[in-house]
């Protein structure tokens, strides 16, 4: 559409520019960085989930190589407080202080010539542990007298309550549904783990840190707070980053520790997280429990929903999203894309002796979609209405847009029923139902649907409401025409799989007509880019896309003024197109000539030229802070081998609407990658803990991730309802794919099990859970 026919602008399926270096192995990641004299760091991590730290004995020969909390006296703990009423504050020490609160918490930092030697030294350190009872289950943690944080009266980080008196409905509703659901604790698993290289630059009096981070400006703010350095004394660089997913938005204690260490020892240092650390100590996410009661009428209309939800928040409040975001989001987004008017929801964020829970792609949406879509299938079962119709009767309709739902979310635009209709039609449910009717053997077919909307690019008002350390404001971008006519774009967000080096070049092309190949995107360096909260929350296409457009529009005006002068045309009469300034008669000068004039031949400039030149900083916000609402319907078929409990995914269809796609091919990639992760949540990924809160999946042999062989062919149907709030009508869609699969797959598996009287109410749906459900049903 806005592409203008060149095939390179907004809306074009332009191949990703950045893939050239990635596919040739020319990317540069933190672990590729080598600095002369660089030393390596290993962390000695607590082997016990909950214990007081007694004497720490370091062999005399290694004293200088080992640092503990008693050395980091000038370092403040990580503080991620929420302003929500009742939020209990806790500090996350950079190195464990007094006691450890989860397995894997860093107790000592060891620096040596190599990582192996640092680990050798770690093995020589003796710590006198005084074990304390470990809190492994969030329900038990609510009942016990043991405290994760001694100064708290209990282990509740935050309780939220959306109240409504549902007794009138409870007394009269013909259908009452009750479900208890659990989702597993997972570990985010980007291909590249975290990693830090830190160096103190004496000339600039500045800490320079390369970090595998998706929000480098926020990392800098966090480092500033912990290290007592002003922002100017810290430069954070995120080079190529091999996947973020939320994990790399977190300020890690390891980052703070290395920042301190580089200055202390006067040598560059690095720590590269290994898979053991990522799995056992760091990347935890997703663990929810729901007690749901739903009331419906005989026609399948959901009348009211009553929920008590718990989130296992782990031991600490991570920076900047805090320990409350997950549960507080459950309360606000559980109603999903549905229009019911009565709602009560109480949530508890519970501290346990497990690593802090971190926001993973989709954050709470993956869990709540599973919860509400389970309710929809239960209503369908109770009423005998088919699974598509029962949802159609409850979805917000297109003519109601913009729609304010029961939790005051304002859905900006879209046609939710149409997305569901398309996904269901493409799945061909009647044929699958006929197949099911003919099945008598051990292999059973199941059909599952899910539909959700995804708030993206939500801004100031929303995050001010959470009261966490990070509140996004105007997103800024810089557009600079270089002396030879190349366009440099600088954004404070970071691209680590989102293809922004391409899609933002397409935005610039749409405004300036400049060839995307002549556009360079500078990102991931706090010294070179404007402040930004970064890439998270499905926001960069909207926020950085809007900011780049705004900067390019201002730049276009300045280019036009110079170009008109060179063309001896009226300033208002020229157009900027195809990389040139064109006068009404057809005469033109190229952007390169305009740039040359500004930088190299200023004697040719008009007397009244804008002295700000060809370097523009512009800010952008959508028309509302409430965010865009992309949405998608997932429809899938599964077969369940009821002898083994093995699930095979069959046809999988997604109908999605991300508004105007800057680059639909990149959007497809985002949806497919997210869906693969959602399949992991549905069927494979689980970090089990034993009764002492020891993590039991310490390698990828035990923590199962879906591989290429486990991902079916996924068909995507695009809809394109422009957002009325954003520059091009684009909506945030980066997290979308990860949200829908657990609900759709769980519903499909339970559909297959229904004739056998069995049901699984927990994720992931493993052979064990299916076989145990069948055994409970006497099968």
């Amino acid at each position, binding site marked *: 559409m806005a592409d203008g026919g060149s095939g390179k602008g907004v809306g074009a399926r332009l191949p990703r520019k950045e893939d050239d270096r990635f596919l040739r192995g020319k990317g540069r990641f933190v672990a590729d960085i080598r600095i002369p004299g660089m030393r390596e760091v290993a962390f000695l991590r607590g082997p016990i989930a909950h214990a007081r730290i007694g004497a720490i004995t370091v062999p005399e020969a290694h004293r200088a190589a080992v640092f503990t909390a008693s050395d980091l006296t000038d370092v403040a703990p990580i503080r991620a407080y929420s302003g929500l009423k009742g939020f209990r504050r806790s500090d996350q020490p950079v190195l464990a202080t007094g006691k450890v609160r989860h397995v894997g918490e860093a107790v000592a930092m060891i620096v040596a010539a190599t990582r*192996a030697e640092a680990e050798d030294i770690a093995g020589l350190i003796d710590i006198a542990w005084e074990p304390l009872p470990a809190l492994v289950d969030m329900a038990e943690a609510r009942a016990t007298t043991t405290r994760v944080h001694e100064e708290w009266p209990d282990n509740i980080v935050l309780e939220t309550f959306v109240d409504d008196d549902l007794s009138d409905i409870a007394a009269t509703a013909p259908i009452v549904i009750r479900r208890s659901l659990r989702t597993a604790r997972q570990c985010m698993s980007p291909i590249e783990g975290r990693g830090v290289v830190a160096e103190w630059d004496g000339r600039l009096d500045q800490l320079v840190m390369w970090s595998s981070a998706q929000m480098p400006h926020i990392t800098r703010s966090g480092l500033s707070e912990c290290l007592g350095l002003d922002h100017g004394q810290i430069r954070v660089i995120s080079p190529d980053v091999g996947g973020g997913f939320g994990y790399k938005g977190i300020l890690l204690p390891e980052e703070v520790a290395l920042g301190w260490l580089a200055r202390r020892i006067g040598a560059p240092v690095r720590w590269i997280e290994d898979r*053991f650390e990522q799995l056992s100590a760091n990347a935890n996410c997703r663990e929810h429990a729901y007690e749901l009661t739903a009331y419906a009428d005989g026609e399948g209309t959901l009348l009211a929903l009553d929920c008590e939800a718990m989130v296992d928040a782990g031991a600490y409040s991570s920076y900047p999203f805090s320990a409350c975001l997950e549960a507080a989001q459950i309360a606000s987004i559980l109603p999903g894309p549905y229009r019911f008017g009565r709602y009560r929801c109480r949530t508890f964020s519970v501290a346990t002796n497990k690593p802090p829970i971190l926001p993973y792609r989709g954050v709470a949406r993956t869990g709540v979609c599973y919860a509400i879509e389970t309710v929809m299938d239960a209503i369908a079962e109770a009423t005998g209405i088919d699974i598509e119709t029962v949802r159609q009767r409850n979805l917000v309709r297109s003519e109601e847009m913009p729609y304010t739902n029961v939790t005051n979310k304002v859905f900006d635009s879209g046609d939710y029923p149409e997305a569901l209709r398309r996904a269901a039609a493409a799945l061909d449910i009647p044929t699958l139902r006929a197949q099911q009717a003919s099945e008598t053997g051990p292999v059973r077919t199941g059909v599952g649907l899910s539909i959700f909307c995804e708030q993206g690019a939500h801004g100031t008002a929303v995050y001010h409401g959470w009261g966490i350390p990070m509140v996004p404001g105007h997103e800024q971008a810089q557009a600079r025409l270089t002396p030879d006519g190349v366009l440099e774009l600088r954004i404070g967000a970071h691209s680590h799989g989102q293809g922004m080096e391409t899609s933002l070049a397409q935005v610039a092309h749409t405004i300036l007509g400049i060839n995307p190949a002549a556009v360079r995107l500078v990102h991931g360096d706090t010294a070179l880019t404007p402040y930004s909260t970064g890439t998270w929350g499905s926001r960069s296409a909207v926020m950085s896309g809007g900011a780049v457009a705004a900067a390019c529009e201002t730049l276009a005006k300045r280019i036009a003024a110079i170009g008109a002068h060179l063309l001896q045309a009226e300033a208002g009469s020229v157009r900027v197109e195809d990389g040139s300034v064109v006068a009404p008669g057809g005469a033109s000068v190229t952007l390169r000539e305009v740039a040359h004039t500004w930088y190299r031949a200023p004697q040719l400039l008009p007397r009244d030229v804008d002295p700000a030149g060809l370097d523009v900083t512009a800010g952008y916000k959508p028309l509302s802070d409430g965010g865009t609402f992309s949405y998608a319907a997932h429809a899938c078929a599964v077969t369940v081998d009821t*002898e083994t*409990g*093995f699930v095979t995914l069959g046809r999988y269809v997604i109908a999605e609407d991300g508004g105007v796609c800057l680059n639909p091919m990149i959007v497809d990639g985002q949806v497919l990658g997210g869906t693969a992760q959602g399949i992991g949540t549905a069927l494979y990924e689980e970090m089990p803990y034993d009764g002492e809160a020891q993590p039991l999946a310490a390698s990828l042999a035990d923590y199962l991730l*879906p*591989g290429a062989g486990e991902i079916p062919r996924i068909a995507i149907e695009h809809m394109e309802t422009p957002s009325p709030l954003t520059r091009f009508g684009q909506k945030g869609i980066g997290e979308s794919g990860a949200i829908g699969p657990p609900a759709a797959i769980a519903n499909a598996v339970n559909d297959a099990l229904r004739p056998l009287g069995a049901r699984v109410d927990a994720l992931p749906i493993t*052979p*064990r859970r299916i*076989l145990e459900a069948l055994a409970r049903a006497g099968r």
Partner: protein
Amino acid sequence: MKAAAFDLVRPRTVADALAALADGARPLAGGQSLGPMLNFRLATPERLADIRTLAALRAHAETDDTITWGAAVTHAEVEDGRVPDPTGGTLRAIAGHIAYRAVRNRGTVGGSLAHADPAADWISALTALGGSVRIAGPEGEREEALTGWMSGAFATQLAEGELLLSVTIPRPRPGARLAYRKLCRKEGEFAMAIAAVLDDPARAIRRVVVGATDGAPIIAEGADAGPRAHAAIDAWPGEAWKARLLHVSLDRALGDIAA
């Protein structure tokens, strides 16, 4: 994590290798199990003897009745048909589903038998075929039948200082069938249940091996080997859902034989 420091020696002959083992070295073949254990520091040997290129361990041989693979033959070499397959393709197929190709490129048959992970493939498949291993040690060479090889998880008849040289597999006679079923949650993972059944009427052999039992495999022989293996699973102390998987894999393997 990184491995603790160790010395690496590269013996040229079996005799040199045995001398290295006598000197406290631990044999390193493909390193696909030992490597992670070194990195996790679950194993901290002072010395490793790289036996992967020993000519005697890389060889293979055939007679009218048997084929022999050197212990350092890789899974990939079996998969690719670079060594003879006495089953006419079943062992190649089994090899092709061991872990991932990157693992198969380096992992060895002998290493798998010596490591004796209960959920590994060769332990069950080659035991069903009546295989035996040849072992060299300070006292000379000896032969061990695989049916008595494992005494528990990661525990075998291989003693300290001994080296597994080769595995010899009797050729099934015409008309014989080998069925092999394993249940994995995803491609490349260790099995949750394994059943291997050899039915060789000409030799009057019917042998059932049930693997992935968290210990030594269940082995039953004779005409009623199937029912006796099922009974052994019933007596197995593991969880009910896992026992169910063992039963199912056995039923399916027996079904393949009957088909």
